[in-house]
């Protein structure tokens, strides 16, 4: 036994590149598998971290909702639960404006706390504290704010709250962590709660109550109890884990799709490598079997080899995975997370690492088991006498299986159930790849027939010879498979990214205005004063409620719009074909709603059906009277007339103000900023919004691109390895041709034409495979509520084919050079 192991080790040592290739693909698969899994954890952690900055260690939060009688909630109710809680901390929130020496306006978020209570559940880390009781007109500011405005403890500053000026002295300066983390837009300020209560004129009431249940108390029960007391208020978990999970899970699906591709290419590489490995070790295995080793023993030796690859690859993969995860969460920062108080975080559960490791071992064993078992079934006599029957009869099972899988891949996706999108789609993608790989010999055959005819005229006889050489050439078929898988994965990601870009661009094209604005008071008088600004052509106050629950309690609209029947379609061009007025008139006649086509398919609604919406005044039935195409708010959007919106949603002021300009947009923005400087405003041009949107999408796709590039890298290494193998195998044939008078130039030309042909075929099949994969994507995206239409880019398809050619030709440079140098006689002489 030990001796067979020695042979195994020797064969690993001799074929270093192959060993590297197997390890590399296993490592990459498990690393990306781990990173994709842990990514959703990390995103969860990032979101939770951000929320924790405000909610501290609390687990339950009570605050007013849109249907509450007052924005403030009395702390008296919570008193009754004294025994059941660790703490119940009240907080009054508000906002203020600080004018800097340069006359800039900084928006301050005010948090009214009793310092003692705050320190108990969300402690401030002080840079300096002035040793004064935290009462009266005192403030705690962040280090950043203090530094930027040259403020130190004991100084006095003036801030504007609700239009009136107040003078405060600085009691302390906090480090920029926790509540004071810089979010780039506003600055947190802690004020004594009683002081803020006095300013707002509330006694015994707060904006939010943060609660931590006492040890042993059931959180759910406590929430139910509190809900009964605070009937008209929102009692919820401080960290809405379920919502967060739902969000991050939808991110996991695309990641896992990419992992499937990486795994597939690895399976292919390990499988083909082990076919060669077992063939090489056959004589040794045969000899051992002939002197009494059992089949089991030799199987174990071969399997242990793949086990070793799996273990080493898995271990390396876990380490690598942490690195990739780190890079990915860095890249997440570019998705606009950094501006809202996110910090890069890496988080994973130990099981995930265990799973990744296990996946590596499984990957290695599963991919190598078929060649190993096949080899072990061969009769000893045949191995020893080297009379292993060579396959001569051509079986067509590959063709049949390939075509059947292909048919399945084309027909199944429309029936993918939403709940099982991830699993079913992974299976469909796997089937798509396998079907193409099975069909590759046949597709290649057709290509070669064509090439043989064309090459005579393009490249002369060397071309014909090259085409003939590629027939039934295993190494070339492997290369074509590898190229196809790599290219299709890159194409998949780039096409989706391109489609999203296109869709978003189209989406913004439908917005017929230039500026979006939100002010403190958004009413008719605000519209009027905006209209008076030079360069403002028209103004429209838009009503929107976000995150609207539907009657099933699970589904939500991202946005419900209350539309002004006269103006709405002038601002949002949603591509209606009927005349606008007629449609909008119908909207205002009753509780009618237009919904997006995405919602139409999601809920299978027809015209005349009803959609039940949860409003502050209870459930309301809206009759669906039409559909429109939109990608805004991911297409999870509907609009009703403003009349019913105000009635049902109980919202008086506009959500945002849309402005059309007649002059340079930036100029108008500046004028608006000057005019509204003392009240807090949010203003953005549509152009900037689009840019930010595209950038954050791009950042997301860059993360996916890592995966697709990894697939391609593995593929390219595989191709290089195949070229090395194929050169050794072909040396004799090449020497033969040289002896028959093929000159060096002809040899090189032939090898390059072969590579070119392989690349062309690989690239083209890659495109076919890519398109097949892409065709399944809309169904998956729909399942995660992202109704993206696929846009193909012809230059992208063509450059994919070109990529195949470039990889193949570059990979053949080394064999081509070697072919003109090797010793002919050596290659010809011996059997």
């Amino acid at each position, binding site marked *: 036994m030990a001796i067979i192991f020695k042979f195994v080790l020797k064969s690993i040592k001799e074929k270093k590149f192959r060993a590297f290739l197997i390890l590399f693909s296993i490592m990459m698969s498990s690393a990306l598998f781990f990173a994709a899994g842990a990514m959703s954890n990390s995103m969860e952690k990032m979101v939770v971290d951000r929320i924790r900055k405000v909610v501290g260690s609390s687990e339950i939060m009570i605050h007013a909702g849109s249907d509450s009688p007052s924005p403030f909630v009395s702390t008296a109710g919570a008193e009754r639960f004294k025994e059941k809680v660790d703490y119940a901390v009240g907080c009054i929130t508000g906002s203020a404006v600080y004018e800097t020496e340069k006359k800039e306006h900084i928006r301050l978020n005010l948090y009214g706390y009793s310092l003692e209570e705050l320190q108990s559940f969300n402690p401030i880390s002080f840079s300096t504290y002035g040793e004064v009781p935290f009462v009266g007109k005192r403030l705690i500011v962040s280090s950043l704010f203090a530094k930027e405005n040259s403020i130190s403890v004991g100084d006095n500053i003036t801030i504007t709250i609700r239009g009136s000026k107040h003078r405060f002295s600085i009691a302390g300066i906090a480090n920029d962590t926790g509540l004071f983390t810089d979010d780039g837009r506003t600055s947190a300020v802690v004020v004594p709660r009683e002081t803020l209560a006095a300013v707002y004129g509330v006694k015994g009431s707060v904006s939010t109550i943060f609660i931590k249940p006492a040890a042993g108390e059931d959180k759910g029960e406590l929430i139910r109890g509190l809900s009964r007391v605070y009937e008209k208020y929102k009692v919820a978990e401080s960290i809405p884990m379920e919502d967060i999970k739902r969000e991050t899970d939808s991110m996991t699906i695309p990641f896992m799709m990419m992992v499937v591709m990486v795994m597939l290419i690895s399976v292919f590489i390990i499988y083909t490598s082990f076919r060669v490995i077992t063939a090489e070790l056959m004589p040794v295995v045969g000899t051992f079997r002939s002197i009494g080793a059992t089949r089991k023993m030799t199987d174990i030796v071969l399997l242990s080899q793949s086990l070793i690859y799996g273990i080493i690859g898995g271990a390396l993969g876990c380490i690598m995975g942490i690195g990739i995860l780190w890079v990915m969460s860095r890249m997440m920062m570019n998705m606009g997370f950094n501006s809202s108080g996110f910090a890069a975080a890496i988080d994973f559960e130990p099981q995930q690492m265990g799973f990744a490791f296990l996946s590596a071992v499984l990957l290695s064993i599963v991919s190598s088991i078929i060649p190993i078992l096949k080899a072990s079934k061969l009769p000893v006599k045949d191995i020893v006498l080297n009379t292993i029957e060579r396959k001569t009869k051509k079986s067509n099972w590959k063709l049949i299986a390939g075509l059947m899988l292909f048919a399945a891949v084309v027909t199944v996706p429309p029936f993918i159930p939403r709940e099982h999108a991830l699993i079913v789609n992974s299976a469909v993608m796997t089937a798509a790849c396998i079907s193409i790989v099975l069909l590759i010999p046949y597709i290649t055959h057709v290509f070669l027939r064509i090439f043989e005819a064309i090459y005579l005229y393009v490249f002369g006889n060397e071309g014909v010879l090259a085409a003939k050489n590629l027939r039934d050439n295993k190494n070339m078929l492997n290369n074509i498979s590898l190229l196809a898988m790599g290219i299709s994965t890159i194409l998949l990601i780039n096409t989706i990214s391109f489609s999203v870009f296109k869709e978003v661009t189209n989406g913004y094209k439908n917005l017929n205005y230039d500026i979006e604005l939100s002010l403190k008071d958004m009413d008719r008088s605000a519209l009027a004063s905006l209209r008076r600004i030079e360069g403002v052509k028209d103004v429209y106050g838009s009503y929107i409620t976000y995150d609207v629950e539907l009657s099933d309690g699970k589904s939500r609209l991202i946005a419900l719009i209350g539309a002004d029947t006269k103006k709405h379609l002038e601002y949002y061009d949603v591509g209606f074909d009927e005349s606008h007025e007629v449609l909008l008139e119908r909207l205002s006649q009753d509780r009618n709603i237009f919904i997006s086509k995405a919602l139409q398919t999601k809920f299978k609604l027809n015209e005349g059906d009803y959609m039940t919406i949860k409003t502050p005044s209870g459930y309301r039935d809206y009759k669906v009277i039409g559909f429109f195409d939109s990608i805004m708010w991911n297409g999870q959007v509907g609009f009703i007339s403003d009349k019913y919106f105000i009635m049902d949603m109980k919202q008086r002021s506009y959500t945002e103000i849309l402005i059309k300009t007649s002059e340079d947009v930036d100029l108008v923005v500046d004028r608006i900023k000057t005019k509204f400087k003392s009240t807090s405003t949010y203003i953005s041009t549509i152009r900037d919004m689009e840019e930010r949107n595209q950038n954050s999408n791009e950042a997301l796709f860059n993360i996916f691109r890592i995966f697709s590039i990894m697939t391609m890298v593995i593929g390219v290494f595989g191709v290089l390895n195949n070229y090395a193998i194929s050169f050794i195998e072909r040396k004799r044939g090449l020497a033969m041709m040289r002896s028959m008078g093929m000159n060096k130039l002809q040899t090189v030309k032939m090898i390059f034409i072969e590579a070119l042909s392989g690349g062309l075929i690989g690239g083209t099949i890659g495109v076919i495979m890519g398109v097949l994969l892409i065709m399944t994507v809309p169904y998956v995206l729909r399942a995660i509520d992202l109704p993206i239409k696929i846009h193909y880019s012809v230059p992208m398809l063509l450059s994919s084919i070109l990529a195949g050619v470039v990889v193949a030709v570059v990979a053949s440079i080394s064999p081509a050079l070697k072919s003109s140098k090797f010793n002919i*006689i050596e290659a010809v002489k011996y059997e």
Partner: protein
Amino acid sequence: MEALKRIPITEAQRAVIETCSLYKTYKLGAVDVEVLKDINLSIHEGEFVSIMGPSGSGKSTLLYLIGGLDKPTAGSIKINSKELSVMKDKEQSILRRRDIGFVFQFYNLIPNLNIEDNIMLPILLDGKRIRDHRKKLDEILEVVGLTDRRGHTPRELSGGQQQRVAIARALINEPDIILADEPIGNLDSKTGTEVMELLRKINKEKGKTIVQVTHSRESAAYGDRVINVKDGRVWQ
């Protein structure tokens, strides 16, 4: 006593292969191995010559030098009065294509090309159109007796059949010279005889010059002349 039949050399018969003070030395690390020493040979048009000698004496080396597959350390080789050593790779290749046909002990067919394609390789390499040489192919397949096997791949053929394919391949471009390194070394005596008969036929009917390396007296008897090589020297 039955002497080997000698064909009288007349003025009309010109030397197609000539070597002059041919030396070949292999460097094995620091040691120089002199494989061929001062070889002077002259082989005439239409001759069938057998090179014999013990294993390792340098027979194959000599044959490959003549065919231009390797370079001599010193001395000259002339094929059809043209000096090999001054030719570039391209010219030598053309010479191998048009003037020389090789046959090897291990057939050396290209496994994934069928019999037809294997035989037509030299035509392809010479930049000629396959379709212009169909008739020629049929003829040669007839000569080697493999007409019914033309579409098969090499591994579907027996050793003797494969060797006949190799001979057909050596003939397709109608070279003047055929160089064969132990052409029947891998065959049983019956198929060996068949192959030798074939070579003799080609020599007699087509007037090709044949140089073969062989270990067998019977096989050498098919030729006109024997050149004995021992320790890198020729002993006539």
